[in-house]
């Protein structure tokens, strides 16, 4: 590819990148209503929609290969063979990419931990995350450490106790717990396991994990109170609703008189790795119609967004 000029390379490189300004547009839409729009990329039309999370999702109308993903795959294949250590120029030259493009791909792969850079030599190699792909995305203690300030803020604002949960072995594992700030006697619940189908934390984890929700629907859904969802079809409908609104609620489905609200925590790329939520007396958390109070839902969603942002920033 040495005969390709820099200008030509630049043009190739821009092909599948949507115009960045489009996604910076402030999103002021009513919840529950998806927004759709169209714009012309350099060679393909794109459709994008804005979910209630305020996140733009790009969807190619004509399903075709996305060049940067192909290039990223080529970079990984290159690093996976031979010495396994390559400098930026080597990688760019081997794949016929402009150095800027190769650098961008490497930086992105580094961010998702598929690639590591040797601090001393500056050379790249495959990241440790590739080796245990599928086992864990984020260390539970790391999540607690990153989210502790936001969980405290949520407890202070809502006046309720806060939990952060991750999926573990068919249950919600509580990885962080902040007491309800009223100085009453409470027990630290870190390490406790909660049912997936009967808690707001669990519903969030189920809603964004198709395999997990399929497994859970195949099992018998244990009834814990008279309000616990025990019919698989009903659970499926509720999970669709959770995805639609971006948060989950539950009133007296786990314990009589108790309610909870939770929202998803994501890592870059959108993968849900955990959930943060509040729980407390149903009459304080819900309005007269038994729906979680809007203010509380907003506080929970803001906390979840804040934790998500802190995971993006520090990765």
């Amino acid at each position, binding site marked *: 590819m040495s005969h390709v000029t820099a200008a030509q390379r630049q043009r190739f490189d821009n092909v599948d990148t949507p115009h960045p300004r489009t996604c910076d547009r402030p999103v002021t839409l009513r919840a529950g209503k998806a927004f759709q729009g169209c714009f012309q990329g350099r060679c393909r039309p794109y459709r994008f929609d804005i979910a209630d999370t305020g996140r733009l999702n790009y969807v190619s109308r004509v399903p075709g290969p996305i060049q940067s993903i192909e290039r990223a795959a080529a970079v990984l294949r290159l690093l996976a063979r031979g010495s396994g250590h390559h400098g930026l120029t080597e990688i760019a030259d081997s794949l016929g990419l402009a150095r800027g493009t190769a650098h961008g791909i490497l930086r992105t792969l580094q961010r998702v931990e598929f690639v590591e850079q040797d601090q001393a030599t500056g050379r790249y190699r495959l990241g440790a995350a590739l080796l245990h792909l599928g086992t864990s995305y984020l260390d*539970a203690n790391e999540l607690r450490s990153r989210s502790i300030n936001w969980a*405290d*803020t949520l*407890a*202070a604002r809502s006046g309720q106790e806060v939990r952060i949960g991750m999926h573990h072995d068919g249950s919600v594992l509580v990885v962080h*717990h902040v007491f309800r700030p009223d100085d009453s006697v409470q027990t*630290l619940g870190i390490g406790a396991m909660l049912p997936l189908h009967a808690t707001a934390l669990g519903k969030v984890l189920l809603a964004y994990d198709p395999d997990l929700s399929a497994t859970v629907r195949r099992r018998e859904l244990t009834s814990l109170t008279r309000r616990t969802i025990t019919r698989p079809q009903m659970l499926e409908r509720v999970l669709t609703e959770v995805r639609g609104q971006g948060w989950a609620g539950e009133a007296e489905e786990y314990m009589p008189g108790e309610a909870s609200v939770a929202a998803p925590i994501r890592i870059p790329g959108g993968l849900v790795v955990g959930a943060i939520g509040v729980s407390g007396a149903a009459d304080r958390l819900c309005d007269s119609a038994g729906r979680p109070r809007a203010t509380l839902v907003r506080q929970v969603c803001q906390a979840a967004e804040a934790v998500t942002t802190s995971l993006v920033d520090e990765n």
Partner: protein
Amino acid sequence: MQRFVMAVDQGTTSTRCIVFDQNARLVAVAQREHRQYHPRPGWVEQDAVEIWRNVDRIVPQALRQAGITADQVVAMGITNQRETFVLWDRHTGVPIGRAIVWEDIRTEDLVAELGRKPGIEEVRDRCGLPLATYFSAPSLRWMLDNVAGLRAKAERGDVLFGTMDTWLIWNLTGGVNGGLHVTDVTNASRTMLMNLSTRQWDPMLLEFFGVPAPMLPEIRPSTEISGTTTRVVPGIAITAALGDQHAALFGQACFEKGSIKGTYGTGGFLLMNTGDELVRSKHGLLTTIGYQIGGEPAYALEGSIAVAGSLVQWFRDNLGLIHSAPEIETLARTVKDNGGCYIVPAFSGLFAPHWLAQARGLVVGLTSYINKGHLARAVLEATGWQTREVVDAMNADLGAPTPVLKVDGGMTADHLLMQFIADVLDIPVVRPLVAETVSLGAAYAAGLAAGYWPDLEGLRRNWHLAARWNPAMEARHREDEYANWKRAVELTFAWARSTPST
């Protein structure tokens, strides 16, 4: 009109401005880091002008973020890295060289020399501190000896001395145009120049270190700073100042005699309020002023752990066994106990309660059974046992056991460690909802001085429990383990003795 209190926290690596509301909730945070200079091995310096410029930026930034104006701020409190100081020209406001940081060990030889001088026992008695490079006086003496013409200017009062609180207050209240040259008792208590009983500069200590009195600021109670900003954002009342660890004690609402707070970051800082009793430690602790609200001070005992979180960093960066600090807990949980392995992190000697500069770290109890999980446990347990040693010393000095340990700092996110500390102390460990205890303490002192909060009781009501770890270790097991730890510590002494001096 809603009113707020502001804290400026001038720390070792960054300066932050935090705005709090009346319920002690955080409303805005602005932060800027400053450069660390290492001109020679062991030297650590900072640019006081850079720090001042950072304050100039973050104060308006915090106001903007909170969406409030200066007249909504009833008071500002200053808290700061302790012992770090700067000298500057009274007439131009220009610093003489850079600020010398508490971590700087350029005075090792000077300290050894001063330690042989007659009157050294009297020094410890008057200021409550052992002679060490850590405190301001030896470094100040070094400056006076090594900068040409400095001593004469200092004697005429043309050059001023200040810890970082003093430097910021002088600049905020006008600098060369009538800036206040004051410090608070807690900061003054870390210089080795203040007499703990009189809470004034002590002529004998000034004589011992060769420091001219005219260069020193006026010492005031923590809540009687009584200045008003004329620069940055004019018109804000500066009502309080406290050293950072003292501010944390205050922010944790440790107002009763015998209450202890522990801040766990890179190192560990434990302070115990000893009330109106000036306790001279017989167990290797430092005596200091906790805070002074009004006429009478609350005294405190301090025990510092040099290596706490930094041992986890070492485990991550130097051994590469984990990718991030919080993963130490994950690794430690892969095993059920330490497998008989102990790590004593005496990287640069041991601090409280041993004070042995020559001690060096060690790993003991290695067998073929030990894996990285056991090492990770030993890393976390080292912070637990060091806490136990300091708390034991505090209890022995005060003659009564403390009922609870209040914790803050980044390491409180480590659930395993917090449980372990509760287990080895055999008392509950509690964490408050507001993690920013240093800034909160400064805000509390400032708000109290301005009448924003009525009294200590009002502040105590703002303290809310966020987590509580109850002790759950069997007594027999605890004492066996503690005995093992003590044996490991003794081995570091033996190693120090057997190391040929260079």
